[in-house]
């Protein structure tokens, strides 16, 4: 099965972000393909490398980055949602005159078209969030 995943909720605030990760990891371990993980709404906050949770808690951002590195996973953050919430890569930071970027390794910023395209390409689009 070829899955596309949409993550609509921010890390720690809402379990949807955890469930999306667990689902994605389980699907990959079962041998399924994950065509893309698309982060939208507050879900874009899953992709900032400045996240610093307490030592004894899970690191949601690093967890995604590690999964991406291991499985060559395409983690896409919506540009419009990211701009509202202060998530930027080097290009976005420069383009918007910001003094820093904060995107985590393994993530990339792109447009909403990537979500639609994932819906077209995948057998199933699975949405996580309220």
């Amino acid at each position, binding site marked *: 099965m070829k899955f596309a995943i949409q993550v*609509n909720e921010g890390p720690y605030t809402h379990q949807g972000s955890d469930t999306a990760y667990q689902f994605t990891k389980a699907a990959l371990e079962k041998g399924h393909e994950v065509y893309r993980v698309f982060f*939208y*709404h507050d879900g874009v906050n899953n992709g900032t490398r400045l996240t610093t949770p307490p030592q004894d808690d899970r690191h949601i951002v690093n967890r995604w980055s590690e999964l991406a590195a291991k499985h060559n996973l395409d983690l896409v953050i919506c540009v*419009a949602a990211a701009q509202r919430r202060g998530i930027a890569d080097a290009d976005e930071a420069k383009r918007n005159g910001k003094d820093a970027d904060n995107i985590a390794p393994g993530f990339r910023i792109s447009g909403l078209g990537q979500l*639609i395209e994932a819906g*077209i390409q995948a057998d199933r689009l699975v949405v996580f969030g309220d």
Partner: protein
Amino acid sequence: MSEEMMEGGEVKKFLYVNRKAPYGTIYALESLEVVLIGAAFEQDVSMVFLDDGVYQITKGQDTSGSDMKNFSPTYRALEMYDVEKLYVSKESMEARGLTTDDLIVDVEVMSAAEIRELMESQDVVLSF
């Protein structure tokens, strides 16, 4: 997938499920942004409004007191994007004392059972 579909681009049935009030959270606004961007892909698009989502398309929205952007006029522009299949939940409308006269766009009213069938007939369901 047939040769023809590969060449002409695959067309899938996309359903956007709008369940939240227009203000209070950003889901409704950002959902509408997906619909507008998605229109460029020329898919078979439907939208359904249920629960508090029916308030997204009510007339007379006034956000002047809350400093939020009133984006309700955008729903009227959906027609220009060839997004013409709009459905509302009969039960959600009744529970809120709304009729189609209260709405800014033309819609088809559907029962919960009909909405279930609509969802089952889709390829991609995006829920906001």
